[in-house]
C-alpha cells in the first residue's frame, strides 16, 4: 500500500470529501477472503474470490455478495474437487464516523456446491447441491481517492442448519 493510499485511508482526501457530502453512496468491488469452510468433519481453510455491491442510504444499507471458492485434493487413489458459489443479500445498519462506514447486517444466502469425485481408472460422479441459509457480517468500507473504495469484513454463513462457514476478507472497488 503506498503512502498516498494510507493517507487516504486514515486522513481522507478528495474522495473522502466526496463521500462525506452525500447522504447516500454506493460501492461495488472484488474481494479476496480466507474461508473457514465447514467440511463434513472439520473446518478447512481455503481462499475465496467474491464481488460485492452496497447501496448505503445511512443509517441503512443493502448489500449483495457473490462468492466463489474451490477445494481440491488429488492423489494416486482418488480426486475430489468441490466448488462452492454463494449469493447473499443483506439488510444492514450503516453507521460510524464518516467517511468510514461500519456495516452490520444479516440476510438470506443461497449456496450451490458442486463436487466431482473421481476414482479408479475412469469412474467419476458429479454431485450438485443447493442449500438455503443465512449470512451475517460486520464490514467496514470507505473511500480510497476519488472513485475507489475499500472494504474489509468478517462474516459467517450457513448452508442449511448444521454447516457454518466463516470468512475474513478485504476488497477494493469503486464508489459513486
Amino acid at each position, binding site marked *: 500500500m503506498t503512502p498516498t493510499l494510507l493517507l487516504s485511508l486514515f486522513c481522507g482526501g478528495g474522495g473522502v470529501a466526496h463521500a462525506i457530502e452525500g447522504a447516500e453512496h454506493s460501492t461495488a468491488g472484488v474481494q479476496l477472503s480466507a474461508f473457514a469452510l465447514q467440511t*463434513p468433519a472439520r473446518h478447512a481453510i481455503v481462499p475465496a474470490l467474491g464481488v460485492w455491491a452496497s447501496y448505503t442510504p445511512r443509517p441503512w444499507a443493502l448489500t449483495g455478495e457473490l462468492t466463489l471458492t474451490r477445494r481440491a485434493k488429488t492423489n494416486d487413489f482418488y480426486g475430489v474437487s468441490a466448488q462452492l458459489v454463494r449469493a447473499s443479500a443483506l439488510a444492514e445498519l450503516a453507521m460510524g464516523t464518516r467517511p468510514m462506514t461500519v456495516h452490520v447486517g*444479516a440476510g*438470506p444466502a443461497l449456496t450451490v456446491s458442486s463436487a466431482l469425485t473421481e476414482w*479408479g481408472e475412469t469412474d467419476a460422479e458429479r*454431485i450438485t*447441491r443447493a442449500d438455503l441459509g*443465512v449470512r*451475517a457480517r460486520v464490514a467496514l468500507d470507505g473511500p480510497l481517492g476519488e472513485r475507489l473504495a475499500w472494504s474489509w469484513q468478517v462474516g459467517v454463513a*450457513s448452508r442449511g442448519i*448444521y454447516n457454518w462457514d466463516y470468512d475474513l476478507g478485504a476488497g477494493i472497488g469503486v464508489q459513486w
Partner: protein
Amino acid sequence: MFLPLVMFACSPDPSPALLLAVDRDEDGEYRVAPRPIPELSDAQHMEGALGHGYRGGRIAIELFSADMGIRYDEGGRMDLDYDVIDDVAIPMDEDGLVLWTYYHTLSQVRADLNGLGIDTEPVWPIDFAYQPAFVGMDFTSGENAAYLGSGVHLFILLPDALPAVLPLAANPGVIRHEFGHALFNVLTAGDAYAQAPYDESEDPNVTNKVRALNEGFADMIATLTLDDNDFFDLSLPSVTTRDVAADAVADATMYPENAEAYDPYALGTVYASFAWDLRELTSADQAVVLVVAAVDAWSAEAAWDDTDRWAELLLELSVAEDESLKTPLCAAFAARLPEHPTPETCA
C-alpha cells in the same frame, strides 16, 4: 440470523448398501471401490455399532488430578454430504472418503479376526474424534491417526499435512495398526477402559519396552490381516524402516535401558518382522492367531519387563502347533534377536 431456514437438499439414505472406500483388493492392489459397511447404521453422522464419530472436541490432560488422567470432551456431530448413485454412496468431500475407509477397515478387521476365532468384541465400540484440539499434549498433524488408551479408549484421526499421497487416516494399514493398539490394551489390561498395569510401573524402562511390543503388535495386526509387509508405502514412500520383510535386527541400543530418547518403533519392527518370518513359514491367518495367543500368554505371565519373552512364547506356541517349524523359526529368532540367549525350545 433467525430467519427460517430451508434446505433444498434432501437427506441421503443413511444406510446405503455400498460406500466408496479405499481397500486392498484380492490382487494385492489398493484402490477406491464400493464396499459394504454393515455396522455403519448412519453413514451421514458416522454412527454405528463400531463407534460414533465426532468432529473436533478437545483432548485434555487433567493436570490437577492425582493420576493426570486424559479425557476427551466430545465435539459436534458429524454431517457427511453424499449422494447414492446406483446403490453406491459417493461423498462430496475427501473427509467422507477418509471416514468411510476408516469405518470399513474396522469392519473388515473385526470380521477377519472374529472369523479366525480371535474375540475382538471387548474392543467395541470405539468412538473417534476427527481433528480434535489438544491441550497439554504433544500431537502434530504429522501423526494423522492414533489410539488413546489410558482409560479413554478413543481413536483420533487428523487431517493430512501432505497433499499428494493417501492420508494416513485413510490408509487401511494404519487404521488396522491403530486397532492393534486397542486390541493390545484389551489383551493386556483386560478391559478396553482399564489402565494397563505396565503404565503404572514406576520404571520408565518397563513402560517403554511394552511400548515397543505394543507398536510391534500393532504392525503385526496390520501386516498380517492385510497380508502386506509394507503398508506405509502408500502414504509415506520415504519411510522404509517399517517394512517387516526387511532385515530388522535387534541390538542393545534398541532397548530403553541403553537409549536416551527412546524410539519404540525400532524394536517393535524387529518383533513384527519375526511375526512376518512366521507368516512366511505358515500363512498370514495362522501367524496372526499365534501372535495374539503369544501376547495372551505373555500377559498372563505379566512379564512386562521382558518383551523378548513374547518372541520366545511365539516360538513355543508355533512349534507346539507344528514341530516342523522348529528349525526355520529358531533360525529366524536367532537372526532377529542375535544377542538373546537361545530359547529353551531351540536348545
